[in-house]
């Protein structure tokens, strides 16, 4: 599993201040820490980036590349910032992201071709978020065909099924399950494509101290259904251990829960029980509540 390190993100106050004040150390520390922790890419989420776009992107990209020998994921909705960022990348970058929306097809996809980079394409279209597996598949097949015609091969397409917060009344849990099914059939309908998700969105709105557990369990589940990469926090040691196969028993318990096997909770440690309970929530078996570990 390729982890795209999410920590350089403008929503983090320290990052936005560092970008504004050109404080290279803050950015480089984050880049180094993520590279050392095992990230495969470093995501640069710069938001809409309205002023000094070109100059800022050049500074940010070269600042990170000075200390981390990793490819970058340029994460913005602004096509000008996107191109400015991609242009300065030394290693083949990831355009993050495009979608099936008309303006994205017209701006972002040609840019991916022009800069010869990989591109994240989400299942969203002009009609919004497709509600079920079939419509998600239909949407991504349309957009992938469009990208192929532009000359972008499947191997350069990283499909994003879009994760929603599991805590949103009913829908979030249904989507968590839908995405697992989607990933299972993706390879059959679009051979050669890769996949990625914005992992932490699954735990958006959940009490802070409980978020990592949901992220970890869901990543293991997505991994079982064939997920190629995830935009996630490589500084979460347990998350990294899980995907490196260092916590085999926990991974096995999550897989068993996914397969609907009976698990004797009494025979497990408290931590193992928490992992199983969380997997049940993400499988839609138990109704989510903030108190899901307590019942």
């Amino acid at each position, binding site marked *: 599993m390729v982890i795209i390190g999410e920590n350089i993100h403008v929503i983090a106050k320290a990052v936005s201040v560092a970008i504004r004040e050109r404080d290279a150390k803050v950015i480089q520390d984050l880049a180094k820490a993520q590279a050392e922790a095992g990230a495969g890419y470093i995501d640069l989420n710069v938001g809409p980036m309205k002023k000094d776009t070109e100059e800022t992107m050049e500074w940010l990209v070269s600042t990170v590349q000075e200390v981390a020998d990793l490819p970058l994921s340029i994460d913005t909705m602004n096509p000008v910032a996107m191109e400015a960022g991609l242009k300065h990348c030394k290693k083949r970058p990831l355009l993050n992201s495009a979608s099936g929306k008309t303006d994205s097809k017209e701006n972002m996809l040609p840019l991916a071709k022009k800069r010869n980079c990989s591109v994240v394409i989400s299942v969203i279209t002009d009609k919004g978020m497709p509600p079920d597996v079939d419509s998600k598949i239909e949407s991504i097949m349309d957009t992938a065909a469009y990208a192929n015609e532009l000359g972008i091969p499947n191997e350069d397409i990283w499909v994003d099924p879009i994760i929603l917060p599991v805590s949103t009344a*009913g829908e979030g849990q249904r989507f968590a399950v839908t995405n697992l099914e989607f990933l299972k059939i993706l390879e059959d309908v679009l051979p050669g494509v890769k996949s990625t998700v914005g992992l932490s969105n699954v735990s958006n709105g959940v009490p802070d101290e409980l978020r990592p557990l949901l992220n970890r369990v869901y990543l293991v589940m997505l991994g079982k259904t064939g997920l190629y990469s995830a935009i996630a926090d490589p500084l979460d040691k347990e998350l990294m251990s899980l995907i490196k196969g260092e916590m085999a028993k926990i991974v096995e318990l999550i897989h068993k829960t996914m397969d609907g096997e009976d698990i004797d909770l009494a025979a497990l440690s408290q931590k193992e029980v928490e992992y199983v309970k969380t997997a049940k929530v993400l499988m839609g078996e138990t109704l989510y*509540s*903030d*108190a899901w570990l307590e*019942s």
Partner: protein
Amino acid sequence: MEYKAPVEAYTGVVREVTIGKGNKSLKIGGENILPLHFFDQGSNPNPAKFALEVLDMEPQDWPEHLLQPFKDVISDPVKWAKRCEELGADAVLLRLVSTDPAVKDSSADEAGALAKKVAEAINIPLIIYGSGDDKKDAEVLPKVAEACDGMNLLIGPVQKENYEIVGKALLEHGHNASALSPLDINLLKELNVKLCKFFPGEKIVIDPESAALGYGMEYSFSLMERVKQIGIITKDNMTMMPIIADLGGECWKTKQAKETKAQGLLWEGMTALSLLLAGANILVLRHPESLKLIKEMIETR
């Protein structure tokens, strides 16, 4: 080939909650089928019950056609409650609106004394609701619970902000809790999980908030539906409680209900019927004629 209708059997059973004591009691819940799925395997031993609402002070904003059946007793909650009993209610809900700091801020002791008087005066079970102000309810409801010690009433709303203090008082004095959360299944479950850590599940009734027809009723409808499905189909222990639909106040707030009597009765009657279909086990109404209307609709089923 002869057609055979498929019959579902379910695994979950809604807890049966008893409100009141002895011959002054009623039972709600206990079903192991989805609402009105009489064609499936299972039963509902306790058909839906109906309460009429009494306020602890003269209503300020009720239209004339709603006041009319209670006109002569409107300033005396005890007599008003007795009138509800005569008019065929299965239970009375006494709402302590005057305790609201924004209304009269009347004291917890007064509320307790009145609750006891009303409970003793009627021969049907009593439900008591505070003003809904979570801080004030945290003072008022424990006093009410104490004043009515051992009567096994249904008392609420118990909310996220005050469930510990109110829940403990209800437990100590032997009452049921009506657990209110704002139209959200995840919050509803969370409150039940937290309450159940010290409070018996078989003494909890879920109040998921009931909106009126045309004013968001569909949210209440699908939420109640979902509570029942998750309880009865997937056997979620924290949603297998009966549901109270506290709808009268919501209906009579609407412009349509205030305009004319006929509209008001239909507004309340149709909201009640809809929420009954969604799975409500006890419904709180204000007008005796809408009570009559909905009882007739059920009986001619």
